């Protein structure tokens, strides 16, 4: 097709390159939402995936001839559904199993034309909540969400998680089997279940983010993709479900992300928050994060993600570690401890207290946690203790604590950091 016949002109000819570009874009923007609706109509993940691809194949052929329909999404859903019925008919001819016939779509034609934005949004949420159902093991929730909601390939997920492809593939297959066999419903949880079920979705998103953020090993670029995938998912979820904790989580991820380039050296060594070049922090991400924190806090119904984001926002506001509003940070940690008591949060609070008052004050709190028997095997507890001893001038104790931390640490960048610190103590 020639370029002088742009799409929609009287010639009735459609520019193929334009159509292909448009289809590519529709695929990027819409395919997972079309998929989400197809699952509801067809009742089976695998069949919906097959139908989705057949629908796009049909779109390439038909739209080249007839141009792009007014509502491409509805066209794709309708076409996908018919393709699925074809697949079922073909399978039946060859003797399908009971399970396959059970997944047959209702014979009545659903009113696809009447599918409006609200239906698609609901289906998108259904897909997210189903993939993050607490009856599925957490690592299955993660794999399913990346595969089914984000549309990553099994290979991409395996590479990002440094796992064999077969392991990830198996998780996805087993997850889908459990959804089918244990009859995990494809629906948005009821209002009373929503807080619990949302927790599960948020923790999957945060897990994906952290996997991409904690540059423990592997290809950094691929892992950074994982973080941006999580942020994208956070934005999608916030658009679908404007809950304060969704704002809080998105803010937390954006604020962490704003420091990505500052938190490691070119050699991949960790740089502590206080030593980071704050000029490298991404001010645009900080502004977005801060605005979300404020919105979430203003709702008065926020939880632990918002509080963590608020702490991160206080750091983002400060020109240097010493100019940080440490009383505010200690106060936020106090609230976090009420919302979700944990020894790790206590440890972070102790470090903030040390910054607000003096190293000895934080040291006393950390020693109390360790004396209780908590965090004894937690490398960062000993590293924090070592750091405070060093600042308090307790060199011998600092050395012993760094050695303890080193013995417990498994992460290579962290180990290099601890060794450097030990070296500096002489």
């Amino acid at each position, binding site marked *: 097709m020639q370029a002088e016949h742009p799409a929609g002109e009287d010639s009735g000819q459609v520019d193929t390159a334009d159509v292909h570009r448009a289809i590519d874009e529709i695929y990027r923007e819409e395919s997972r939402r079309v998929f989400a609706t197809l699952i509801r109509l067809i009742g089976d993940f695998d069949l919906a995936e097959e139908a989705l691809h057949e629908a796009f194949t049909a779109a390439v052929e038909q739209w080249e001839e007839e141009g792009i329909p007014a509502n491409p999404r509805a066209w794709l859903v309708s076409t996908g559904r018919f393709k699925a019925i074809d697949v079922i008919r073909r399978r039946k001819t060859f003797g399908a199993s009971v399970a396959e016939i059970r997944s047959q779509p209702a014979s009545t034609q659903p009113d696809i034309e009447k599918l409006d934005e609200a239906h698609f949004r609901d289906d998108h949420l259904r897909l997210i909540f189903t993939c993050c159902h607490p009856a599925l093991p957490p690592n299955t929730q993660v794999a399913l969400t990346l595969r089914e909601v984000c549309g990553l390939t099994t290979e991409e997920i395996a590479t990002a998680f440094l796992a064999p492809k077969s392991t990830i593939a198996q998780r996805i297959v087993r997850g889908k089997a459990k959804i089918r066999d244990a*009859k995990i419903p494809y*629906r948005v949880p009821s209002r009373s279940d929503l807080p619990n079920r949302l927790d599960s979705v948020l923790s999957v998103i945060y897990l994906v983010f952290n996997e991409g953020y904690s540059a423990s090993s592997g290809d950094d670029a691929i892992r950074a993709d994982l973080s941006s995938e999580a942020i994208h998912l956070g934005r999608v979820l916030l658009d679908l479900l404007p809950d304060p904790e969704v704002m809080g989580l998105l803010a937390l991820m954006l604020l962490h992300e704003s420091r990505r380039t500052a938190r490691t050296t070119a050699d991949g060594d960790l740089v502590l928050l206080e030593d980071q070049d704050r000029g490298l922090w991404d001010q645009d991400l900080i502004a977005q994060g801060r605005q979300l924190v404020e919105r979430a806090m203003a709702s008065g119904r926020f939880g632990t993600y918002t509080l963590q984001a608020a702490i991160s926002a206080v750091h983002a506001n400060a020109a240097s570690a010493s100019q940080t509003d440490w009383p505010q940070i200690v106060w936020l940690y106090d609230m976090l401890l009420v919302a979700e008591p944990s020894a790790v949060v206590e440890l972070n609070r102790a470090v903030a207290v040390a910054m607000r008052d003096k190293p000895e004050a934080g040291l006393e709190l950390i020693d109390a946690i360790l004396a209780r028997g908590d965090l004894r095997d937690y490398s960062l507890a000993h590293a924090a203790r070592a750091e405070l001893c060093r600042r308090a001038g307790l060199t011998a104790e600092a050395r012993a604590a760094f050695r303890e931390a080193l013995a417990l640490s498994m992460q290579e960048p962290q180990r290099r950091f601890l060794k450097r610190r030990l070296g500096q103590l002489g």
Partner: protein
Amino acid sequence: MRFVCLGYADLNRWESMTEGEREAFMEKCFAYDDELRRNGHFVGGEALQGADQAVTLRPRDGRIDVTDGPFAETKEQLGGLLFLEARDLDHAIELMSKHPGATFGPFEIRPANEAINQLLAERDKAIRGSQG
């Protein structure tokens, strides 16, 4: 869809309760079972004697070994089974979350294997039919 709910209980906690407390607890469980019955969710159930009374058969070298005790030793013992009819897994979770037994120990909810149960039902029917 049929779900089998396995109710576990901490035996030490049970032993530490007074007779009155046990009766009150059982009564609460029965009352909720009744509510499930009235709505057509309670298909059946079996209460179990303690794991001390159990015997486990295990295949070994082509023979069947008989040993005392339950198959898995855990702090929580399987105390009873409840057969539940529910729309889907979320519905089963919703129904069993309100069961007083769920406050006492873990409740495992397992979807019944309907394909095998179908075969069982057919065998059952065949034997009954032949016995006339």
